[in-house]
């Protein structure tokens, strides 16, 4: 009798643990359960495409492959990924025909949620918000996805590796500036009169902090981590100014008297950063930091012995 009871208990425990084997994942809409690891994934937001590729998962399809290759570029998209249309007007029917078992969408795509749910389970990660830390949110989404795909180990390894590399970059920057790195402000130029300045909720800020650098202009945290400001606000820059390429009017702007009067307007305090995507996942922090470092290392500094 007693043994029968314990057998029952054992069986109960077994079923319970079987049930808990179902993967649980929380997105911006709540908790979801997956019985098995999704195999056919379609990601419609580029930061989540990036997350998948970082986890060595080839998505079945994404939104706007050529856009991704142009604007995000890193990590490189594997070949044979189908295109389901631009990010804000994708073809729902094409998505359905590909028979995905998971669709991942991001901020600004929430309006598609109801329709996409008819096709497959949808995970909606609203990672960009003014009232939370975008970097922290990006990291947590990456880990959650890794868990869902049973690759938490890999994800942690990657993050650990990135951390080590970031430390090395930090070292390099520090040495380059003889232990006294200046403040660094990173902007995106759009036309001659206005500039997008990154604030504390941006991946640029996350990259700068990882490099041990600080901005001199601080803007209030915003949803996307950028604020459009008149060019004149750049007079507040105290240290180095980096601009993310491309900016077609570079030659014209840099030769204006107004620009030349800027405190940073000399070869030591002004540099250009290779094209980089500012609205990416957590790994984009590392790519951004890499490009920022490259730009910073190109700035000439006084050699210690040259000082009088």
């Amino acid at each position: 009798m007693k043994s029968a009871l314990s057998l029952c208990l054992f069986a109960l425990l077994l079923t319970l643990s079987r049930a808990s084997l179902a993967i649980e994942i929380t997105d911006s809409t709540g908790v979801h359960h997956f019985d098995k690891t999704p195999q056919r994934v379609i990601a419609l937001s580029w930061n989540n495409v990036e997350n998948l590729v970082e986890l060595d998962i080839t998505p079945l399809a994404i939104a706007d492959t050529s856009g991704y290759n142009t604007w995000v570029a890193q990590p490189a998209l594997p070949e044979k990924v189908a295109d389901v249309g631009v990010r804000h007007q994708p073809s729902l029917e094409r998505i359905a025909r590909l028979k995905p078992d998971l669709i991942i969408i991001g901020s600004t795509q929430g309006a598609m949620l109801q329709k996409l749910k008819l096709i497959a389970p949808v995970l909606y990660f609203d990672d960009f918000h003014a009232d939370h830390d975008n970097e922290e949110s990006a990291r947590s989404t990456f880990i959650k996805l890794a868990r869902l795909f049973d690759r938490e180990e890999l994800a942690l390894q990657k993050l650990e590796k990135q951390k080590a590399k970031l430390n090395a970059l930090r070292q390099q920057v520090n040495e380059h500036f003889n232990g006294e790195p200046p403040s660094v402000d990173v902007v995106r130029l759009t036309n001659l009169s206005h500039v997008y300045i990154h604030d504390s909720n941006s991946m640029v800020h996350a990259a700068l902090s990882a490099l041990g650098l600080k901005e001199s202009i601080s803007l209030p945290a915003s949803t996307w981590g950028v604020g459009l400001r008149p060019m004149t606000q750049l007079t507040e820059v105290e240290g180095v100014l980096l601009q993310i390429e491309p900016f077609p009017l570079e030659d014209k702007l840099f030769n204006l008297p107004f620009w030349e009067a800027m405190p940073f307007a000399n070869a030591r305090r002004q540099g250009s950063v290779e094209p980089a995507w500012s609205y990416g996942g957590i790994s984009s922090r590392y790519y951004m930091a890499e490009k920022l470092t490259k730009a910073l290392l190109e700035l000439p500094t006084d050699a210690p012995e040259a000082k009088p």
Partner: protein
Amino acid sequence: MNCSLTRALFLPCALILAALLHLWLGSEISAGQQVNLLFGAKAETPQDFQFLQSALPRLCMALIIGATLGLAGSLLQQLTQNRLLSPMTLGTSSGAWLSLLILTLLAPQFASEHRDLAALIGAGTTTVIVFLLAGRLGFSGLPIVLSGMAINLLFAAIAAALILLNDQYAQPLFVWSSGDLAQVSWDKVIWLLPRLLWPLPLLFLAPRVLTLLRLGEQGARARGMNLLPIFALFLLLALWYSAVAVAAAGIVGFIGLLTPNLARIAGMRRAGSELAMSPLLGALLLTATDSLAMFASQGGILVPSGATAALIGAPMLVWLLRKGEGGQIEEKPWSIQREPGRFTLPLLILFGLVSGAGAIFLDHLQDGWMLAVPEPIIWQLRWPGILTALSAGTGLAVAGVILQRLIRNPLASPDILGISAGATLAIIIGAVSGQVINSPSMIANALAGSLGVLALLLLLNARQQFSPGRLAMIGISLAALMEACLQLVMTQGGDRAFALLSWMQGATYLVTGDKALMLFIGCMFCLGITLFGERALTLLSISETVARGRGLATGAARTALLAVVGLVCALVTALVGPIAFIGLLAPHLASLLGARGVRQHLLYAALIGSGVMLLSEALSRTLIPPSTLPVGSLTSIIGGSYFVYLLSRRRFASA
């Protein structure tokens, strides 16, 4: 004497004050230092340079662009004797915007270096198209306003579709298009001045020519003048001025439209004095609105001058219209041209069926176009869009029929009257303050917006009849206001703007089954009520007195019918987005085809409206796979092109 002296002094004094305010807001250094710098002190700090290279050129730009717009507006209005013309109403700015966008997508480097050239070409071409469409006889009347508006809507739809399909490439243009006057050098002023100055000597001849024009062509010929070449010359001059202003400063609406009217209110009745005062007023107005823009931008969010100009201009225009200024356009009675043919109804039904079949069966996969019965999952995704298109087309047609009959005006429609724009504006404001687009609370927003505009219209027309020109102007001003708000959102960066823009173009494919059913029930309910109120609508469309004579409670009937219109517009705008042209074209085409009674009118219009919507729905899925084209853009392009065709045939004007 004393009075005229104060009046003469008032404007220069106000201008100087506005300029000082502008400088005070635009620069951080003290007034004393500013004076020193002006008198040749060497600039040292970045703030000094900011004053010399940014604040001062910005002030100059505000003064020059304001004056140019005022001058162009006054020239245009006097040449055509049409108080509603301005670069804004002529589609100049939307043409510039579209051409710049296309050039940026084709040749980014060239476009960013020669932005002004691109804008100039676009502005010039568009305005010439609008003038050609209106025809020589249409200059002074409604046709030209309509042509401009049609082209505006058409080009805006094409531009929005292009932006949606190329989002990242288009982003740098938003600041320009929002009409911002910020400067970092004297380059633009230097670019502008020679282009504005060379025609100045010609302007001294203008007062004489304009005075002669007032006499009319015959009067002038009696004095031995053939006016046409001179007329053409000055028209080109006015267009040149507006195009140059758009190229240099982006889209700044209202100034060119308002200032000549204000000058006339201020008593400048003679051609020369109006022409002289308009630039001064324009400079004053733009300097003031730009100061406001700078002041508003201090909070951190960049507010472009185009937005503040629209914010001040739109109510001012409405006030002007209320005063009866600017609305003097002859009205043409609405008459029916011919009997419906034997095949009219069957053909319309066939059109609806073919479009419907296309929406259901047409597909465009990797291996090309095909007709296929949709698989269950595809059908599940597809039917809400089809039902939405059908309902929205019917609903807007009903709203159009009611408005055209009630207001007895072939132009009255939700888009022209700005009812849709009101709903859109309310939704944009909601979206900016954090609500989710197409959430239920947005329907309440949209309803408030559309009913608000309806109330405004009723208020404005309490005493006078609804004149077509005045109605069109209200629609235009609300649409411009909405456009300015949208641009304001677009410039702020991030991807949120594209989600808003996507909805702005009418996204039927995002509508879920329950919302599609809700829209269907709503629109059918409105159709039902209208059919129920058939007698009231028939009587009211004859005349108020007849209706009252037959014992109809006209006030209550009118209110109920207008409430139906407001409900349709709110539902469609909240669930699908702003859909242009359907509410205008379907009822109008129906009456062109000979629909007479209310019932017939409703039936024809609903068939046309839903047919066009279903056709757009089918094309939106299949035209550019794998992306989806916004349905609203397609209806605007189909409807807009047809409207332009109608205008070119002069049928609209004579209908």
